[in-house]
């Protein structure tokens, strides 16, 4: 079973919900945790996994063989990302713009292009107790995270309950993280910012045809969760859990502690959340 945790707005508590759900399922359920927020991976602070394996992720970029190139310009013409430019007797490669689609290599009439790998980040995997843990780390200065997320998701073990911690937003890295999920938990907070971005995230899940449910975090802050609940009622999205604001939880977070470490009782609530998700699966 693949459950992803997303939010639209950042900082609403995705990682908190994902981590505590994974922990609540221990012992008894085989869980794999995938932190797909490769720009800012944070789940490791709370799960504290022992990393056993680390591997570099490379994306293909073109390399021109000057002895074969006739500077015809075909590669620059077919590149949709302006990652190649042909001047009088040189081909310039702008690797940060390259999506690694392979069009230039395949379509070069002189077969003068081959692909080499460019490092974009690392994937680290290990264990946190019985939880299998995998996260990715995009290298500083790299712009494109989707290829790293794709590589990370190849590590997915669907024989386990896979919990995916997605990045904030609704653009390509989020879509890449959510793909193939059977259920999406959307974490929000009761402010106009939380609601606005929840609408966007719910729209993305709908477009991807992934059933979703809502967790309202810090439910007692701001103006209370009334408006979020009426949005959910209108859209037919179930509210599965509400976590009241509690300074003790916020302070525990600041020490790298989980909710379950502060309040044992939340285990029952997260197990209830898991049962609700199972019940809602098509």
């Amino acid at each position, binding site marked *: 079973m693949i459950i992803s945790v997303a939010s639209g707005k950042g900082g609403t508590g995705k990682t908190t919900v994902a981590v505590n759900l994974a922990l609540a399922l221990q012992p008894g359920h085989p869980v794999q945790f995938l932190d797909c927020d490769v720009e800012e991976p944070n789940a490791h602070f709370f799960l504290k996994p022992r990393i056993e394996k680390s591997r570099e992720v490379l994306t293909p970029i073109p390399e021109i063989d000057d002895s074969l190139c006739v500077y015809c310009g075909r590669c620059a013409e077919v590149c949709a990302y302006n990652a190649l430019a042909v001047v009088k007797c040189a081909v310039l490669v702008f690797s940060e713009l390259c*999506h690694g689609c392979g069009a230039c290599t395949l379509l070069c009439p002189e077969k003068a292009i081959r692909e080499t790998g460019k490092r974009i980040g690392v994937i680290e995997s290990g264990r946190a107790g019985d939880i299998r843990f995998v996260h990715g780390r995009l290298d500083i200065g790299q712009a494109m995270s989707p290829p790293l997320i794709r590589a990370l998701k190849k590590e997915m073990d669907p024989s386990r309950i896979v919990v995916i911690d997605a990045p904030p937003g609704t653009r390509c890295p989020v879509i890449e993280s959510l793909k193939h999920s059977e259920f999406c938990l959307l974490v929000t907070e009761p402010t106009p910012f939380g609601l606005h971005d929840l609408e966007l995230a719910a729209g993305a899940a709908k477009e991807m045809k992934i059933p979703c449910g809502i967790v309202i975090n810090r439910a007692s802050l701001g*103006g209370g969760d009334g408006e979020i609940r009426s949005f959910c009622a209108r859209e037919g999205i179930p509210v599965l859990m509400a976590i009241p604001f509690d300074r003790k939880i916020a302070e525990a977070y600041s020490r790298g502690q989980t909710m379950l470490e502060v309040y044992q009782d939340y285990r029952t609530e997260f197990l209830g959340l898991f049962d609700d998700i199972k019940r809602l699966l098509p």
Partner: protein
Amino acid sequence: MKQIVVISGKGGTGKTVMSGCFAVLARNAVLADVDVDASNLHLLLRPEIQERHIFRSGLKARIDTKKCTACGICLPFCRFNALSEDKEGKAVVESLSCEGCGLCYHICPEKAIEMETQVAGEWYISRTKYGPFVHARLGIAEENSGKLVTEVRKKARQLAETEGRNLVIMDGAPGIGCPVIASLTGTDLALIVTEPTPSGRHDMERIVGVARHFKIRTACCINKFDLNLENAEEIERWCLEESIPVAGKIPFDAAIPESVVHGVPYVEYTSNSSADDIRRMWSALLELIA
């Protein structure tokens, strides 16, 4: 003209709350929301939209099913897994996965694939009581957020020039990827809003790395600093070692989410001591870019 961008690495540290306050405190600025993916600043500035523009960017493949002969040649070449077969073996594009590279278009022997430009979003020029405001809305699941950010920034700078304003204040996106890089390049100062948590600290260090990579000057705001005084001190120490000025330390205050609920920038909502802290931070930032 100077440009300040407010970023954080980690989401939810308070970028937009601070940006909204700066919009009030700045006397002669153009405001811009460069978090085009999940933009929120308009919820505080209550803009009156004056101009609305369509943002066209990126291509997606479309199969002409009349021309497709189900030869299957294109299928194995797509690196984004965007092509599959229908019942008759004809190619189908999964548009959420298509990155618009056009490889299939080029190799199709039947010329059955078209590349279509996408409407990826909209951008707006608005009036607010605090000054002109450029903002945007990227369509759900659209790419090219970096290009839209660049578009918004270009418009904001033009507005500043034509209206004789000396500052552009930008509310940025979380993360370190393409929209953040697009919002950083060429700015005079990036204010990094962090919080005294392991995530806040770690994500700040990464975004400082990105700023350095692009040779952008940074300053730091420690928001909700009193949630963990020890961590806040450690962040201050780290900033000192790295020669990053700490422009402000703002306490956790339940009145801040309340001000957001009322849709009012915090320094206008109240004049309590944390609002004063934000005012002082703004003065410190002005000194830094002077």
